[in-house]
């Protein structure tokens, strides 16, 4: 009898140990109820102590702006923290889920996370409208205001970076293969060029993280979609994962891979960097900010690199797309919202701040007035004397579509990267894997598939 009781207790222990895991969600899982947005008062515009969360390069650039900021606002003490990317997303999520506890006052947020935060944690981010954001409504690149203020009333953040799709390439390899990179009109032509390059120089056309070891493994696929003005969701929020545009994009990737033109960047960033240093790929289809990275990583290759806007997916199609953006938001729980806003406004709406940041890390501003500065129109010795800033400015000025990331972007992205892995590793049919992904996304989110 005693033994029986002991055994029951032991079993209870096993169950409790299992249930212990539930604490993980419980501790941080109050969903929308916690973040009220009314938690913080606006405070004073020129007084207070504020903390800013960002990552690596941008954090360093903001830190460098603080002394100048303090000349204007001596009463505001600013601490800029480099949380690291992607660690910052988990940290913001847990903070928002905990009703804003422990969050910094100013948060640097990517376009891929912003809609999710806004929808799942109402009030988690302060409305910047009443603080004065609307005065800057027309100051930013096209589509940016729609991203930060989808309903045109609440302003969830202020735009910072607007990254356009770019096509960085090794001009020397193209030359060796006898291909004129500037003349490539479509990605189909580029694939043919890739075959020449592979045959003559041994370099791959480009690289993709085939097993999707990082969430951004589908960047290239997404760029091909966005060049066609398409995305994972329609503007009304329906699923468009298996649209003809998406199938076209994935088919292009499959064609490249089947022709042996895609190197594997499994491992994400580190693999990308070593590929860059070893010159295993002739093209880096990366957005604006990546130019600064190339210059930093392979300074000895100055003059070998060039940049242009990507070829169109279909002949005559668009070569411009804003593939991502980042923003500064103010936490709804901040006790110094007005002071935090002063900092955000200083960094993002003053051309001088943005020019300084561009000089430091090559981070492209969404603030159009910044482009009046000469630095965006100077020839770059690294990029063979090209005016790199103007290349991307052209893209920012071109008509480009707005994209609806929705709160379910992370789920969609996961399904897309899985589908891409199936195509790249197992030779699966693009149309089929995308259809499966769309159906599964519908099952998970309750959204309609638009077909």
């Amino acid at each position, binding site marked *: 009898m005693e033994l029986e009781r002991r055994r029951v207790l032991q079993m209870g222990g096993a169950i409790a140990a299992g249930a212990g895991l539930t604490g993980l969600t419980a501790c941080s*899982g109050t969903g*929308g109820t916690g973040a009220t947005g009314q938690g913080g008062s606006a405070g004073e515009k020129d007084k207070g102590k504020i903390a800013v969360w960002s990552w690596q390069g941008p954090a360093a650039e903001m830190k460098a702006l603080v002394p100048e900021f303090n000349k204007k606002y001596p009463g505001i003490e600013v601490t800029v923290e480099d949380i690291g990317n992607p660690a910052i997303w988990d940290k913001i999520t847990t903070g928002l889920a905990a009703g804003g506890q422990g969050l910094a006052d100013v948060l640097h947020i990517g376009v891929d996370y912003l809609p999710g935060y806004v929808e799942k944690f109402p009030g988690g981010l302060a409305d910047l409208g009443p603080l004065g954001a609307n005065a800057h409504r027309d100051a930013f690149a096209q589509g940016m205001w729609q991203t930060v203020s989808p309903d045109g009333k609440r302003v969830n953040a202020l735009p910072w970076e607007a990254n356009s799709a770019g096509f960085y390439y090794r001009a020397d390899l193209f030359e060796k293969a006898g291909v004129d990179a500037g003349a490539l009109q479509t990605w189909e032509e580029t694939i043919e060029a890739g075959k020449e390059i592979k045959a003559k120089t041994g370099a791959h056309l480009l690289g993709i993280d085939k097993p999707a070891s990082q969430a951004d493994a589908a960047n290239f696929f997404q760029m091909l979609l966005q060049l066609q003005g398409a995305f994972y969701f329609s503007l009304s929020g329906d699923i468009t994962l298996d649209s003809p545009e998406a199938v076209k994009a994935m088919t292009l990737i499959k064609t490249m891979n089947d022709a042996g033109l895609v190197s594997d960047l499994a491992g994400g960033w580190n693999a990308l960097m070593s590929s860059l240093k070893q010159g295993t790929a002739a093209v880096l289809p990366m957005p604006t900010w990546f130019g600064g990275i190339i210059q930093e990583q392979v300074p000895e290759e100055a003059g070998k690199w060039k940049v242009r806007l990507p070829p169109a997916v279909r002949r005559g199609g668009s070569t411009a797309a804003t593939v991502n953006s980042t923003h500064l938001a103010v936490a709804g729980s901040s006790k110094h919202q007005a002071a935090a806003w002063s900092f955000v406004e200083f960094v993002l709406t003053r051309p001088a701040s943005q020019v300084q940041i561009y000089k430091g890390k090559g981070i492209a501003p969404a603030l159009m007035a910044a482009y009046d500065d000469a630095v965006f129109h100077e020839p770059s010795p690294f990029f063979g004397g090209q005016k790199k800033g103007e290349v991307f400015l052209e893209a920012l000025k071109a008509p480009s579509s707005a994209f609806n990331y929705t709160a379910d972007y992370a789920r969609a992205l996961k399904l897309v990267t899985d589908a891409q892995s199936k195509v790249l590793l197992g030779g699966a049919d693009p149309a089929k894997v995308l259809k499966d992904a769309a159906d599964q996304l519908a099952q998970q989110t309750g959204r309609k598939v638009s077909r």
Partner: protein
Amino acid sequence: MTVTLTGSAARAVPSQGTAPRPRPRRRVAPYLFVLPALLLFAVFKLYPIGRSFVISLHKTVGGTERFVGADNYVRLLHDPLFWTALKNTAVILVVQVPVMLALATGLAVALNSTLLRGRAVFRLGFFLPMVTGLVAYGIIFSVLLNKDYGLVNWVLGLAGLDSVPWLTDPLWAKVSLGLALTWHYTGYNAVILLARLQSVPAELYDAAAVDGAGAWTSFRHVTLPGLRPALLLTTVLSTIGTLQIFDEPFVLTGGGPDNATLTIGVYLYQNAFKYFDFGYASAIAYALAVLIGILGVIQFRFLGEKS
């Protein structure tokens, strides 16, 4: 009257047959001592467990929590990714845990052997992986197993073998995960088994030897039965640990490629912290807890002492 007696005074009086038994209320001190632990348990375990159940019955729609009853659980049953995660976890459980425990038993017996010199060094060596920081260990394994620049493939190359896509092929990724887990936990289990082994009376081995038992026979009939409680403990702990496994797949493969190493723990994490779907994540946690409970009961039934 006895109420006023202090504990020591009561004990000073030799107990008579007729003396009243000490009343339970005098045993307040032990409860006071365990109170802080109980409070902490209630706040950090019981409350989250209960709260997480409540959350599992809700869904966030347009920023507000809406009661949806068992919807999240129904959705779970129809979610192919949950079943994939369950299957992957089950594969690890069925393949890796027995291999690891067999290895741990072998190690424990070897480390217990008086024939071995410098046993302390070996014991330390096998236990060290357990205290290695997860991130350090994750990074070391990703470097070792990197397809193009990894040490393991370099060594294979020296032996004239093809390089293996350790982390990038669905099957090999599972194997890599198993290897990492085995490296991490075998020593820990071996130490538990070793502790038990040292309580097996030497006389039993002597008696077996006198009866003419060889090494294998005495292992089967003396060592194994002696190890039984420790084996039960390590099996149950490893089962619970494996079902909750999160760190290794998260750091090594992120659950990929194409969900080949997606475990329930990783899926739970993704739903909570990537998709902000806390209700669904809580439902997954409860499904997991029930599963662990059931498996625990089964293991006690099959491996427990026979009364």
